[in-house]
């Protein structure tokens, strides 16, 4: 028996044990952990007061002001490849992060360690200053001097001129199918009086126009490269802090430091501090978090307190940031369709929703309520002020008010209403939860909701952005721009192509036109507040709680990594990465 069994010792058992032993050899690490401790953060320690710790999180903890260490490779975990690199061919979010590394814009929103994360303030980039003509139509930009294209063919490090900017804008406007053409609809002409001066004349004055030039899209690219390659889908030569090396499709995008970058760091030498940056593609969220835990990447995110605590227990030195949302989530119909056209119906829907329940069950107890379609920081000084009852209006409450809701429905004469609610699974379980919660709440006032799950592309670009849906939609507001005008005029004016809800109000038209030309910031804010007062009264969109329980993580030795709250790895990525350094 023993002899018979001996040769039956499965060879696979031996092979299996050997394989596990071999495979469990330590994987390559990005580098040793540790380094000098960064300055202690303020606020409670997560070990002793976890709730207090969570509530004290901000998007911009104090910057590390010690002399930065140069060198090292930062590995950023991303969920998806960019589709390609041509700004005239896509505006996909993964592409933005790449563009901000390799390109500059004429102007840019202030980001990084020196900026207030809740203020969308326009700052300089390739332009160092600008003036406006008395009629408000002509902007004259003086450009930074000594800015060079990356030292790669065909540009070979030549100096950037105003003609390059003019070329970029004309290409973005005129390329067939360019998604950025609308950015330049207001432009009458672009002139280049000399190599370092650019003049843009608008068709009519617009105080918000400049922000479009610093927004998500108009990156400055080179004519020579377009002429050589035909398009910029697989090529990127810019003026940005990092130089594109190569793209291993599905694996990573490799960048290296631009040694000739024009902006200087704290030590007087050119930025960035990092020697290289790898944009590593990891589609699965669990794998991304696992890669962060095992120090294979420098960034991560944790959704929910439980996950955050578990990560901190295994990586006590991990840095955590969090932020209030800047734009909201809404349930809305179109104003030229019944029953959404009836203000009493809209108010009833808003009052019937139990937003406290949604906050607690869907968003892990942490959520913010946007007062209206205009981002709160254009109107209020703090998120707390934005969420006061007087800011939210009579018809937007955290708690449910069924009595008032039923009364309004009766006044409007609506009983047994059937409505389709369009949602998309790509927004995740939180939206599914809010849709289900809304269905439950609205049933109590005689509205029968049928939830229709719709593919994202059809939902967002085919329905929402085209302003073509029936019944109601549950959607992110989306980052429609970085200027108040993009939301005020953009969303609310009768003649705007972004008025997805078909709102038509003479008073709103008057006010949105007025804020476009009001140069005094205080007076402009007053106009925006008047608009907000109308919006919270008329309830054109019913605003839902939006959570802020996804925490941004960074390895303990990474210094000065920031993401701007609303854009994440969008257009602030490159500008932020200039200041990052590795303390090891």
């Amino acid at each position, binding site marked *: 028996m023993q002899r018979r069994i001996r040769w039956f010792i499965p060879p696979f058992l031996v092979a299996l044990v050997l394989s596990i032993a071999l495979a469990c050899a330590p994987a*390559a690490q990005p580098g040793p952990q540790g380094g000098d401790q960064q300055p202690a953060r303020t606020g409670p320690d997560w070990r002793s007061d976890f709730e207090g710790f969570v509530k004290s999180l901000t998007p911009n903890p104090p910057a590390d002001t010690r002399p930065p260490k140069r060198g090292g490779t930062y590995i950023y975990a991303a969920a998806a490849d960019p*589709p*390609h690199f041509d700004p005239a061919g*896509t505006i996909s979010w993964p592409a933005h992060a790449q563009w901000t590394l390799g390109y500059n814009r004429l102007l840019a929103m202030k980001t990084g360690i020196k900026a207030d994360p809740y203020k969308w303030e326009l700052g300089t980039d390739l332009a160092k200053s600008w003036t406006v003509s008395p009629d408000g139509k002509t902007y004259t930009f003086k450009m930074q001097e000594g800015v060079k294209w990356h030292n790669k063919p065909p540009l070979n490090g030549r100096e950037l001129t105003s003609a390059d900017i003019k070329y970029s804008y004309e290409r973005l406007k005129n390329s067939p199918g*360019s998604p950025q053409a609308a950015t330049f609809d207001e432009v009458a002409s672009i002139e280049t009086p000399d190599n370092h001066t650019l003049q843009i004349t608008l068709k009519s004055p617009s105080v918000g126009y400049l922000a479009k030039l610093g927004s998500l899209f108009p990156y400055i690219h080179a004519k020579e490269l377009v002429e050589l390659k035909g398009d910029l889908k697989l090529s990127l030569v810019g003026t940005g802090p990092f130089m594109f090396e190569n793209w291993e499709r599905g694996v990573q995008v490799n960048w290296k430091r631009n040694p000739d970058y024009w902006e200087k760091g704290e030590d007087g030498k050119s930025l960035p501090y990092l020697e290289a940056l790898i944009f590593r593609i990891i*589609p699965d969220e669990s*794998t991304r978090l696992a890669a962060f835990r095992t120090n294979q990447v420098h960034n991560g995110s944790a959704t929910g307190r439980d996950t955050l605590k578990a990560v901190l227990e295994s990586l006590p030195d991990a840095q955590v940031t969090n932020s209030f949302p800047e734009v909201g989530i809404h349930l809305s119909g179109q104003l030229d369709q019944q029953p959404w056209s009836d203000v009493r119906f809209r108010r009833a829907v808003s009052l019937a929703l139990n937003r406290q329940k949604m906050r607690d069950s869907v968003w892990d107890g942490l959520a913010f309520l946007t007062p209206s379609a205009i981002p709160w920081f254009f109107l209020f000084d703090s998120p707390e002020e934005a969420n006061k009852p007087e800011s939210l209006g009579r018809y937007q409450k955290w708690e449910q008010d069924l009595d008032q809701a039923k009364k309004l429905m009766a006044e409007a004469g609506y009983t047994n209403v059937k409505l389709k609610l369009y949602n998309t699974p790509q927004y995740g379980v939180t939206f599914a939860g809010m849709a289900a919660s809304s269905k439950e709440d609205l049933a109590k006032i005689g509205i029968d909701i049928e939830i229709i799950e719709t593919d994202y*592309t059809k939902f967002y*670009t085919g329905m929402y952005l085209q302003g073509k849906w029936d019944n109601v939609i549950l959607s992110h507001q989306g980052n429609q721009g970085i200027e108040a005008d993009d939301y005020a005029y953009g969303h609310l004016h009768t003649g705007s192509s972004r008025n997805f809800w078909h709102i038509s109000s003479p008073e709103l038209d008057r006010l949105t036109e007025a804020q476009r030309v009001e140069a005094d910031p205080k007076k402009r804010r007053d106009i925006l507040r008047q608009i907000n007062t109308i919006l919270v009264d008329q309830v054109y969109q019913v605003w839902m709680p939006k959570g802020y329980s996804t925490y941004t993580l960074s390895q303990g030795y990474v210094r000065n990594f920031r993401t701007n709250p609303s854009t994440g790895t969008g257009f602030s990525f490159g500008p932020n990465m200039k200041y990052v350094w590795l303390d090891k």
Partner: protein
Amino acid sequence: MHRYIIRRLIYSLPALVGVSILVFMMVRLVPGDVILAQIGEAGYISESRLQEFRAQLGLDAPFHEQYLRWMGGMLFKFDLGKSLWTGEPVIEEIKRKLPVTAELALMALVISIFLSLPLGIISAVRRDTPLDYFSRMVAISGLSLPDFWLGTLVVVFSAIWFKWLPPIGYLPFFDDPWGNIQQFLLPAVVLGVRLSAVGTRMTRSTMLEVLREDYIRTAWAKGLRERMVIVRHALKNAMIPVITIMGGQLRFLLGGTVIIESIFALPGVGRLTLDSIIKLDYPQTQANVMFAAVVVIALNLIVDLTYSWFDPRIRYE
């Protein structure tokens, strides 16, 4: 044999045409518009700009014209088309990704053979003993556990318990053999476990049948050693159904790599197919599916041809 092979290849042509029509139609039935997906997120895009872009990508032609253009390119110029997103020939992307999937599938197959044959043999030879029950339990578990669930658990718990994860990315074998094995071993085990479950059960079943045959009883009676009886006589005759099943499982292996490649961040053809479907990249999806169809047909042919090695009585005419 050569005539048999040529005949089989000719017979596969209608199947390939059918696959091409199906994939051409089905990929266009996926909800969404590839034009809007590329440029629609800017906000409102005028209809004229959408049409302009559609024409630029050749999507304004009638469906039958688009199909014939694609088929013509494939048959006469070996051109499978260009990606709607990057403009690159789609075959280049398949060439880049193929080594990853091929390596993963091959390793999974080897692991599954390593697991299934011994387990199946033990289970059959030691029928109704604890060893048999254990093997059958392992096989049922392998069939029951979804590979995406197993893969995710492997990733999550190895990071939490062992603070270890396979190196993320792709290290070609000839550049870094050690790193390559570390990257591929775990995903191959996850895939191989499922594949081996089917193989184990089939091996056990066919071995039980063969062990009851008269010639096996004769072999025992002649006093041959157990290894000789099991391996030399029984196993070879039991292999044909096993090979048939394993060959069939390879088709599922090609599909299984989609999820496993995403979980382990391996840039293979499976993930490429998933990405191209999500991005509505019609030419890429069509090319991937056609490529998979050709591979399946070739695999089936190879499996059929191996029968004659196991059973010399089988002849191909």
